[in-house]
């Protein structure tokens, strides 16, 4: 009488595991229209990079396309991919190497629009060193400890390419994981030799004496796209009108954001704790509705070369 209880419990939990990993939740089969809006949830990290979607929602671009969007802030990449696969999010924001990794492993994700791209030089992300460090160029990073927010992702891939292009041996770099908010302290306290940091932490670090060694995104490729909005392949092929509506609204938001930086800064203050002063001191990312496929191919090739991916990504599958 007692053993079956345990067995039953175990069976139930394994069944739950197997059964619950099915497709995304159903958001309705009808094409969205202004008179009959479809509710969707988009998972985004509440940072400057995602300003366009917040702006687009505020400006009504999405409701024009018949979409009732709930922008759900996530704490980071850990939840966005499982969230999309499980159906909590219809679309989510994520950097392209993460998407490549997922597809490399067999998860079928598809980016539907771009999200943000490098702003050129100066950029909103850079590798910094303490002011008194004897590292002066990317090649000097060889043999040193460099922190990135996530290993085997876009940070170390772009940094390694930059170092190799500058003549250093990037395979001797010791990469450690330190989140952006902590990286500033890690560099200042000399716990790492160099750190990859994004704004606004970048500006705070530089204002306190740190030096920029490379703007690794733009030094990698001046047209590099960094992140985009993705969904599952299932949604993409199964709900073409929904996807199209999202794409139209999102691309409009991206273009609008790119040409109205002041409104971007304004909206960022509403969903983060940043101030306008901080934002004015920052370089904003570039928001583009177009993908730069050449730069993406380069990114995929680099990720493959450095062992992050098992094979070079198929952009036809990854991008629309």
């Amino acid at each position: 009488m007692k053993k079956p209880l345990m067995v039953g419990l175990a069976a139930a939990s394994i069944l739950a595991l197997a059964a619950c990993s099915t497709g995304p939740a159903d958001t309705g089969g009808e094409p969205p229209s202004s008179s009959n809006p479809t509710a969707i949830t988009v998972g985004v990290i509440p940072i400057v990079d995602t300003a366009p979607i917040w702006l687009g929602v505020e400006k009504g671009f999405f409701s024009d396309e018949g979409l009732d969007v709930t922008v759900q802030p996530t704490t980071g990449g850990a939840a966005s991919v499982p969230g999309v696969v499980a159906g909590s999010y219809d679309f989510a924001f994520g950097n392209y190497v993460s998407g490549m990794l997922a597809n490399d492993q067999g998860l079928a994700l598809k980016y539907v629009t771009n999200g943000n791209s490098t702003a050129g030089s100066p950029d909103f992300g850079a590798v910094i060193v303490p002011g008194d460090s004897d590292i002066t160029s990317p090649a000097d990073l060889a043999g040193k400890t460099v922190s990135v927010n996530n290993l085997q992702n876009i940070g170390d891939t772009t940094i390694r390419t930059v170092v190799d292009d500058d003549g250093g041996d990037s395979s001797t770099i010791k990469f450690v994981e330190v989140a952006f908010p902590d990286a500033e302290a890690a560099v200042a306290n000399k716990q790492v030799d160099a750190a990859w940091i994004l704004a606004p932490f970048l500006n705070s670090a530089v204002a306190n004496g740190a030096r920029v060694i490379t703007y690794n995104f733009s030094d990698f490729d001046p047209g590099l796209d960094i992140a985009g909005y993705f969904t599952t392949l299932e949604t993409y092929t199964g709900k073409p009108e929904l996807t199209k509506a999202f794409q139209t609204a999102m691309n409009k938001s991206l273009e609008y954001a790119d040409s109205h930086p002041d409104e971007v800064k304004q909206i960022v203050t509403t969903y983060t704790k940043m101030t306008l002063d901080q934002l004015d001191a920052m370089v904003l990312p570039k928001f583009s509705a177009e993908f730069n496929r050449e730069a993406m191919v380069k990114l995929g090739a680099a990720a493959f070369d450095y062992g992050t991916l098992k094979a070079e990504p198929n952009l036809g599958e990854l991008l629309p």
Partner: protein
Amino acid sequence: MNSRMRNTKVSNAILGLTGILLFLLAWEIAPRLGIVRERFLPPASEVLVTLFEYFGEGAFWKDVGETMLAWAIGLTLSVVAAVVLGLIIGSSSFLSKSTYTTIEFLRPIPSVALIPLAVLLFGVTIESSLLLVIYASFWQVLLQVLYGVADVDPVAENTAKSYGLGPFARARYVVWPTVLPYLMTGIRLASAVALILAITAELIIGSPGLGYQIALTRSGGAVPEMYALIVATGIIGIIINFGMRFIEKRVLAWHSSVRSEVGA
């Protein structure tokens, strides 16, 4: 309560307060003296002021409520499950021996490793937090209950058996009193673990609550706010602990460890 006991309670409280004050002093001085950079660890006064500002915001209390909800539900469910399973497994030597490996294998698996699973099953909701909370707290209580059952005085149990008491009566009059102190320690430990996991789940997954707010302040670079919320977490922990101790004293008033203190 006689004056001697009252003095003891007062002196306990004063000592506790002294400890806290000493710590706050150290925290105030260290950043100001430059032992730690002020930018990364603001002095205690700044953080406390920010915390008081939070107290005035409705959104703050809503987040506290969400966290406490996950904590309460998760703790209750895991305690009930652990007591039931613990008593059943503990009282059968067959079950104890056959479940040993499985329990020892599953027990040390960190709830953090289950996060992708939680999100997959429940999305970014309170249920994900609950999965982590329950998974972690359950083992704490289960282990204690098993230990308690193993500690039952065989003489007492045999006496009860020879007097013809059935399994339920024995459970109530012999097993339960022995298990109770162990169980209370287990609940006290589990209540702390439940809080930690609730906040960790919110931190990493993003389900609603204090942990989620901490993550937002972190990624937004709002350092004093982040520490203020962390202090709030610690305060909740203290309140929970004192609450649990109070309950424990009430429930175990007859046990020697508590009695010896009351009389001193």
